[in-house]
C-alpha cells in the first residue's frame, strides 16, 4: 500500500483490491492514519455501516474517510475533517460528450481547451467535491463551477483541492475544507465550548 501525506489528510493507494477486501484495506488505512498521529486505532468492531451500507468508524476522534476505486487501483483518503476523494483511470471514452452533458459551461470550455488531462483533472475535482458534500452526483453537478480564469479552484465553495501523485494513467483528487474556513471552524467550535 502506498501512502501520500497531504498534511490535513492521508491518502492510501492499493493495487490489491479484489472486490471483497475493502473493509480490510480500510482498516489498514485507519491503522496507518492513527499510527502517524500516535493515536490508538480501535479494532475492526468500530467499523460500522449506516442503514444504507455506507461504512464509518465509530470511536472518539475517528477519522473521516472517502473511498474510490477504478481499474485495478483502490484508494482511501482519511482526515480529521470532512474529506472527499476520487480516483479515475483514463480510458478511451467520449469525455467531450460527458463534459458537454454534465459540466458547467465554463468547465466545459476549460476541458475542451485543455484536452483529456484537463477533463480528468476537473472530473476528479468535481467528484471529490460531491463526495465531500455527501451528495454524490445529482442534478447540481452541472450547476456549480470549479473552473475560474483558466484554473480549477474551490475557493468560492470553501474547499481546497489537492491532486496527489497517482499511478500512471490515473488521476486522483482530494477535497478538504479550505484552510481559512478550517481555522474559522476551529475558532467557532472553541467559542461554542467556552463558558
Amino acid at each position: 500500500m502506498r501512502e501520500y501525506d497531504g498534511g490535513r489528510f492521508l491518502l492510501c493507494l492499493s493495487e490489491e483490491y479484489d472486490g471483497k477486501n475493502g473493509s480490510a484495506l480500510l482498516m489498514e488505512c485507519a491503522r496507518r492514519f492513527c499510527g502517524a498521529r500516535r493515536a490508538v486505532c480501535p479494532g475492526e468492531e468500530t467499523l460500522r455501516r449506516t442503514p444504507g451500507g455506507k461504512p464509518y468508524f465509530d470511536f472518539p476522534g475517528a477519522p473521516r474517510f472517502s473511498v474510490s476505486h477504478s481499474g485495478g487501483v483502490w484508494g482511501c483518503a482519511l482526515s480529521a475533517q470532512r474529506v472527499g476523494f476520487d480516483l479515475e483511470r483514463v480510458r478511451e471514452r467520449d469525455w467531450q460528450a460527458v463534459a458537454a452533458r454534465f459540466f458547467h459551461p465554463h468547465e466545459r470550455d476549460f476541458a475542451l481547451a485543455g484536452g483529456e488531462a484537463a477533463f480528468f483533472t476537473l472530473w476528479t475535482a468535481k467528484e471529490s467535491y460531491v463526495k465531500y458534500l455527501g451528495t454524490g452526483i445529482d442534478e447540481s453537478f452541472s450547476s456549480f463551477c470549479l473552473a475560474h480564469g483558466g484554473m480549477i479552484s474551490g475557493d468560492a465553495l470553501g474547499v481546497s483541492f489537492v491532486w496527489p501523485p497517482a499511478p500512471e494513467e490515473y488521476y486522483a483528487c482530494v477535497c478538504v475544507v479550505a484552510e481559512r474556513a478550517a481555522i474559522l471552524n476551529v475558532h467557532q467550535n472553541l467559542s461554542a465550548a467556552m463558558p
Partner: protein
Amino acid sequence: MLELVSNIIYSITGKKDITLDTDLVKDLELTSFDIMNLICAFEERFDTTIPTRDVWNIHYVSDILEYMRKRGITDS
C-alpha cells in the same frame, strides 16, 4: 431490447456477457464516470434526456429495461 442495451454497454465499457441480472457496479465494476458515459450514449441513441437522479435507482441491467419501458423509450 436486451441485445440493444448490451451492445450499448459493450460499446462504452467493452464488457460482454450481459444478462438481466448483471449488476452494473459489482459485476461490471462501472465507476460513476462510466455511468455518465452510458447516460450520454443512451440519450444519443434514443434521443431522450435521462435525469441524473433517475440513474442512481438503476442497479441491474433489468432495471434499465424496466426504466425504458416505463418511460416509453423504444428501439424505433
